[in-house]
């Protein structure tokens, strides 16, 4: 909610196919585009498009090996998301303290 908005992350992960691809990479390690296409059950151009969006959000990294492109998850990109969830803990803590002060000032 502050400077490190997870907005691009949310956008990249808002699509169930992309989320599935990311989770697959995160849990199974590096995969070729061919393997990811077989996993996702959509066309290779569609998978490539999804991977490009994940790449832009820095959720995945790739390397070329001959004619194959290999993708792997880049877990650091998720930390703003985790921070954002933690942010709510701090947010509510602070707000409930303000509630305490307000109750002191209110009429009975």
């Amino acid at each position, binding site marked *: *909610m502050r400077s490190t908005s997870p907005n691009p992350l949310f956008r990249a992960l808002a699509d169930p196919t992309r989320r599935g691809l990311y989770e697959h990479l*995160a*849990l199974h390690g590096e995969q070729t585009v061919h393997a990811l296409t077989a996993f996702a059950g959509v066309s290779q151009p569609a998978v490539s498009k999804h991977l490009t969006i994940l790449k832009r959000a820095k959720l995945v990294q790739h390397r070329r090996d001959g004619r194959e492109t290999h993708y792997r998850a880049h*877990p650091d990109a998720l930390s703003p998301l985790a921070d954002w969830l933690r942010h709510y803990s701090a947010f*509510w803590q602070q707000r409930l303290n303000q*509630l305490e002060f307000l109750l002191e000032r209110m009429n009975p």
Partner: protein
Amino acid sequence: MTEPNTQSVILEKTFPHPPEKVWRALTDPHLLAQWLLANDFAPTPHHKFQFRADPNPQWNGLIDCEVLLIDPPRQLSYTWSSLGLNSVVLFTLIPTESGTHLRMEHSGFRPDQQFAFKGASYGWRNFLNNLDRILTEVPQ
């Protein structure tokens, strides 16, 4: 109350004030604005409203909400949707000998809720549930 594995923030605080007074602070839009956020809340079931935080370049500062439950002076719940996170806030007020014990739970969607939400929400919630597992299991 909470679906197993749903990520949530739970905070509890005891106030030396009666539940009716705490309830007013939670449900009067002017009082609510003084401790939470600017809002157009109304204590009416299904009322849709927004909390308005300070905007920044990445975020318009708007939180879309809908009142789910109003049970004065015991329970208040509304949805809390912002930046792709669809969640629910639940306040529970428990009277004590000297005041009120307030429990605030901010959690993901629960399947027993009746309101409509985007199909993607379900997968998104599962993704959040899996987040800790993913963060710990990813090969470095």
